[in-house]
């Protein structure tokens, strides 16, 4: 095996909020927590994925989640993913596949081969789980294939694969017609998970506790919505760079009091900043939306670079894995599992009705349009990470469609006769191309070059804007 190669340590990203700065230690804490739990041996540990709406079940059963995507992201952010990616490649896995998964599989293979953590494993490493909960959902293939591939190196660790489909948006089909059987299926799948966990932990589910936890996460959802809405302020008090930190409690700490408290604090901090007129950047010139794509974890300082040019990011579509519950109109139920299933469907179909009303629209496009308006956005930035199709296919088309159906910006240009004439231009957009954790796909010079040119584009649109 190649001698381990570490990239130069990345520079620390400056955060705009204290809350975001406090995330690092929190992540470290829950990773150390898994190591400790393994050492104590009292709780069962499970590999699992984010965005499955099943944390409440985990926590109610006292099962400790090991977030495998999170660990891969940490390796990426520490610029220490390469050696694990190479391991995976040497097993025959293509770099074109989800590099989170590759990093995880490479790590698992190494740990199992050694019988202990690979040398210098980031933050102590990812412990061997008691079982793995994968998720065959319509969201992504790697979530169903990853653990199956890892199982090659730990065949005694069982997998439970919860299937969590949701109806895809189809223009001429009302999703309400099918929600019923989707819901029945998801409920059965989640009950299957409960049964699996009961068997593994030899404990019975405490449904009262589950109900409390579901209620807690519902309240957290609403609180997150309120908190993030504050970013509509001009200047914007917190940007996407910080949100890539504050996504941690949303995605890895749901159904904990800690997550709730975190957003109470963050909300207070943002309100104070707004009262002082303090923005993410000192002199806010452009308001941008991170309109698609997971970030390059090893290059979060690019957000600082944007900031240094007067660009702030009041909103992003990425990792905001909550939506306003009160607008979802979820059926009443006392059964927490049924509620989780409705919430799951409610989340994914959130933009469907709105999209159906606007010709040529589609939920993802609709979400862009709404956010552009609500947050007064001047330009859209997207990231196309080559290894993940889930969040990165469809972006070009969304921009195309946005240009087609969303109100264009009137600008003056020099016409054929040399005189100024008014034409209409679409909202400026920038697509960055790299990866989530594979640093070999990234070039800082290139990226910054593109950012420079994009900022100039924004400036020129502003200057030529016909009043």
């Amino acid at each position, binding site marked *: 095996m*190649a001698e381990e190669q570490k990239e130069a340590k990345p520079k620390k990203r400056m955060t705009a909020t204290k809350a975001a700065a406090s995330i690092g230690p929190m992540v470290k804490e829950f990773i150390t927590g898994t190591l400790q739990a393994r050492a104590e041996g009292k709780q069962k540990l499970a590999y699992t994925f984010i965005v499955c709406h099943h944390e409440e079940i985990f926590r109610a059963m006292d099962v400790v989640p090991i977030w495998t995507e999170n660990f891969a992201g940490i390796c990426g952010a520490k610029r220490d993913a390469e050696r694990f990616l190479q391991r995976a490649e040497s097993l025959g896995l293509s770099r074109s596949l989800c590099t989170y998964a590759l990093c995880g599989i490479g790590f698992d293979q190494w740990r199992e081969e050694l019988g202990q953590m690979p040398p210098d494993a980031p933050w102590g490493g990812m412990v061997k789980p008691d079982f793995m909960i994968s998720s065959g959902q319509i969201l992504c293939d790697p979530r169903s294939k990853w653990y199956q591939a890892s199982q090659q190196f730990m065949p005694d660790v069982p997998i439970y694969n919860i299937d969590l489909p949701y109806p895809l948006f189809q223009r001429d089909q009302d999703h309400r017609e099918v929600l019923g059987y989707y819901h029945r299926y998801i409920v059965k799948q989640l009950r299957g998970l409960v049964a699996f966990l009961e068997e593994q932990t030899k404990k019975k589910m405490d449904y009262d506790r589950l109900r409390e936890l579901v209620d807690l996460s519902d309240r957290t959802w609403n609180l997150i919505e309120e908190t993030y809405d504050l970013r509509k302020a001009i200047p914007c008090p917190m940007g996407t760079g910080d949100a890539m930190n504050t996504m941690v409690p949303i995605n890895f700490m749901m159904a904990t009091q800690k997550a709730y408290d975190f957003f109470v604090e963050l909300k207070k901090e943002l309100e104070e900043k707004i009262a002082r007129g303090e923005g993410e950047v000192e002199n806010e010139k452009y308001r941008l939306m991170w309109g698609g794509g997971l970030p390059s974890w090893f290059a979060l300082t690019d957000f600082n670079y944007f900031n240094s040019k007067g660009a702030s990011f009041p909103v992003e579509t990425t990792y905001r894995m909550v939506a306003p519950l009160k607008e979802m109109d979820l059926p009443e139920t006392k059964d927490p599992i049924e509620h989780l299933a409705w919430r799951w469907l409610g989340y994914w179909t959130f933009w469907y009705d709105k999209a159906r009303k606007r010709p040529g629209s589609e939920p993802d496009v609709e979400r862009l349009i709404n956010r552009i308006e609500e947050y007064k956005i001047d330009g859209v930035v997207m990231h196309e990470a080559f290894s993940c199709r889930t969040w990165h296919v469809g972006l070009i088309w969304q921009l195309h469609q946005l240009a087609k159906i969303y109100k264009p910006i009137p600008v003056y240009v020099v016409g054929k006769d040399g005189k100024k004439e008014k034409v209409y231009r679409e909202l400026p957009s920038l697509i960055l191309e790299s990866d989530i954790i594979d640093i070999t796909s990234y070039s800082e010079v290139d990226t910054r070059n593109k950012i420079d040119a994009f900022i100039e584009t924004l400036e020129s649109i502003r200057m030529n804007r016909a009043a």
Partner: protein
Amino acid sequence: MTKVVILKEEIIASVVGPTGPEQRRLANKVMEETLRKASLSFPQITYIVSTGYGRINVPFSDRQVTEVTCHARGIVHLFSGARTIIDIGGQDSKGIKIDASGKVVDFVMNDKCAAGSGRFIEVIADTLGIPLDQVGALSLQSSHPVKISNICTIWAQQEVVSSLAEGVPVADLLAGIHYSLADRIVRMVSRLRVEDLVILTGGGAKNKGLIKALSEQLNRSVLVPPNPLITGALGAALIGKEMVEKARKNKTPIETRERVFKEVEIL
């Protein structure tokens, strides 16, 4: 490079000549020279096997066999204990896995991107104006290899030029280039689960800097045949010899082409 090996029991003659745009004519030339060296006439050659990227462009060959098989054959002949072969040529690079009986059991190759082949070093050496046979030694003088951040040969070439202008010592650049190539090669061959003995062959094996970088990154020692350029041709000759012997034993006819040099006009 075009290489010719003439084999009886042992190698009678071998010649290495450049592969230019005019491959066929060159194959002729190198062949002629080898015959001269061996004091043989063309018709005296019983059987001819061609291999390599240009194997189909050898007008007088009786049979074409891939480099994978030929290199393996040649190396096993030289090192009976070989288990992993890394061949670094100017047109591609490959890893070949051999079992205890000397059979090829798996292989990987890269012929898509020049940055994973010996060409990478050739291009950089050319840019720096350093003869190819000196780059290896020079790179060994480096105490601080620089990291080459571009993968693409052409971008790396440009990077090297800029670094040079910034005063980075040539030796450090060269060392960086060698590590960068070795890294890509090791990544590729690690799919085979590398086992000892590891033999490095092809033109890349003439480069001490590359040998060092490879063995460091593989964490193993790497052996090199005395004349690494010709192992493919040697393997081809060995395969030819076996085929003839087998045919003679089974009394089946040996089909060969006419032993004449056809001048081929390309440009």
